[in-house]
């Protein structure tokens, strides 16, 4: 099946006068097929949100440089005019944000925020849009949807708000949905419900979903394929099962190893990846390259601080490492 979204060599640099550029996303490539759930995983500041905003073309107009290509159905989104992009947003591709309360307009009822999209993209009249909106709220599992149309965001619970946001994002059955940490602001039981809902809706509508998260539990339960980002580059990409069975990149390996286990012995120390993002080396420096993860990597070799590792393909897996974790050890 051909890919719906193809991101190729995406590079986002934030520019400031008199200062060197800050490269947030550095040559990221990935693709998403219709009906597929693809995860973008990484810690804070690794560029996952910037990637999603770049795909939606929602980065501020000034102060950044986006290069590379983002193709949807073979059409380069970066080359579209602003108004053409506005036509597509919400209709062909839409997005769910992290904080459901602040992502809803506090002064207008939720119903109006659903119908707004319907009238805008599907040309519906007021009454038809209202009926459709009630149906949408019903579909995302909001009880008493007709009454809820007139509720304001602050009168709803967190889970209900996130459901409403999902209803709005899916109102025009977009072919691509980007979810930027949709469960981070919710408590654990609601998280599971929201993830179930997303999975079910994606299965029903055939929408491709890009799941941005730092939560490996979300990835394990939901994503078909996983991209692990580190300092703006993809360091490992693999099929979900493959990734969890045998993480090859030391970073992925460390991430999986740091998940506390319920069945571990009492008093067991939690494994951590030493250091922090601040210790990173630049991927590409004038005097040669490096692997950004080197200072924190338990498997670092001399070469890691001198040569930028290339992304290498092995079957369905993509790996950017000089000294990957052997398969046997990863499986342990």
């Amino acid at each position: 099946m051909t890919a719906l979204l193809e991101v190729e060599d995406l590079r986002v640099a934030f520019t400031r006068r008199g200062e060197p550029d800050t490269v947030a996303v550095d040559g990221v490539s990935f693709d998403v097929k219709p009906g597929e759930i693809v995860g973008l995983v990484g810690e804070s500041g690794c560029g996952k949100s910037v990637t999603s905003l770049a795909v939606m073309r929602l980065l501020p107009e000034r102060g950044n440089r986006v290069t590379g290509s983002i193709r949807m159905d073979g059409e380069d989104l970066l080359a579209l005019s602003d108004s053409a992009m506005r036509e597509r947003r919400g209709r062909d591709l839409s997005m769910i944000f992290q904080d459901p309360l602040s992502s809803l307009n506090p002064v207008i009822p939720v119903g109006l925020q659903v119908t707004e999209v319907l009238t805008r993209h599907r040309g519906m009249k007021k009454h038809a849009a209202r009926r459709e909106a009630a149906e949408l709220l019903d579909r995302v599992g909001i009880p008493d949807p007709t009454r809820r149309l007139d509720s304001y965001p602050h009168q709803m619970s967190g889970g209900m708000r996130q459901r409403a946001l999902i209803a709005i994002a899916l109102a025009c059955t977009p072919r691509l949905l980007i979810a930027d940490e949709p469960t981070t602001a919710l408590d654990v039981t609601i998280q599971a419900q929201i993830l179930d809902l997303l999975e079910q809706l994606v299965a029903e509508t055939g929408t491709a979903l890009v799941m941005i998260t730092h939560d490996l539990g979300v990835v394990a339960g939901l994503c078909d394929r996983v991209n692990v980002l580190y300092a703006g580059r993809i360091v490992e990409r693999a099929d979900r099962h493959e990734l969890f069975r045998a993480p090859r990149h030391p970073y992925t390996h460390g991430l999986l190893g740091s998940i506390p286990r319920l069945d571990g012995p009492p008093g067991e120390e939690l494994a951590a990846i030493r250091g922090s993002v601040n210790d990173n080396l630049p991927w590409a420096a004038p005097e040669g390259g490096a692997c950004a993860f080197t200072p924190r990597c338990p498997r670092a070799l001399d070469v890691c601080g001198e040569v930028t590792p290339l992304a290498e393909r092995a079957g369905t897996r993509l790996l950017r490492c000089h000294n990957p974790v052997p398969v046997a050890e990863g499986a342990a």
Partner: protein
Amino acid sequence: MTSPRGSLRPRPPTLLDRRRRRVDELAEASGRSLTADAFQRLRRNPVAIVGAVIVGLFVLVSILAPWIAPHDAATAFPELQRTLRPDSIPGAQPGFPLGSDQNGRDFFSRMILASRQTLLVGVFATLIGLVFGVLIGALAGAFGGWVDTVLMRVTDVLLSIPSLLLAISIAALTAKPSQTTVIIAVALVSVPVFARLLRGAMLAQRESDHVLAATSLGVKRRAIVLRHMLPNAMGPVIVQATLTLATSILDAAALSFLGLGDGDPARAEWGLMLANAQAYLDVRPALAFWPAIAIILVALGFTLLGEALREALDPKGRR
């Protein structure tokens, strides 16, 4: 705090009581907008009630003035004029509760009818200032860039001049001072304040999550500005409008006090009455006392209401 219903002796609310109350509140809250919510909190605030009572009385009096006032404001009464001396102005007497003014007119009726001028000037000046200020602020905040720069530099210039001085200069520019020129002068003073305030709030809205979310849904720019940014940015402007009513009333009174108001001596106006009373301050201080008190009270009423409104609309006060 209300005591729990159904028990004779008040007992401290238990956790369960508080839970129940919270559930009741939530049930009550469903279908209630932010505005209704703010109104609810306004009603519980004593400052708001005092302000609202003063403002309410003032508006009531000015609307009903021709029916409340026992006499015509412009007519001089022979029975009052007869007792008028250079060194004495008659005080209260049957039919004239506050006595005479310096021209033998009924002071009480003039006080009451003057409230109309004050309300008229205050409301119109504030409305005009609001409309132009909102227009400028919304344009600057919605477009940003050079539109913002040009508009804000102009408002900065206006803001740098002390408000009363600006109002006096504008009023003094006109050939013949009248009520209209007073309104325009006072309104112009408040335009930059509204513009700055709204522009700032609009800029904050531009960066907000829900505007980003609306943009991500392909909502048109016009709808984003008018439906998603403007209503959310209007809160502080509405508060400012209430406070501006107070300053507009003060400014208008100051202009007439300085002789830049309506020149018609027959028309009653508190500022002008205060100015005229100066000459008779040692003869009959009440002529200055009552207009001054009236101006202070009305300005205080609007200020209290405005402050209470600010508190009620403050998102931090929200549960």
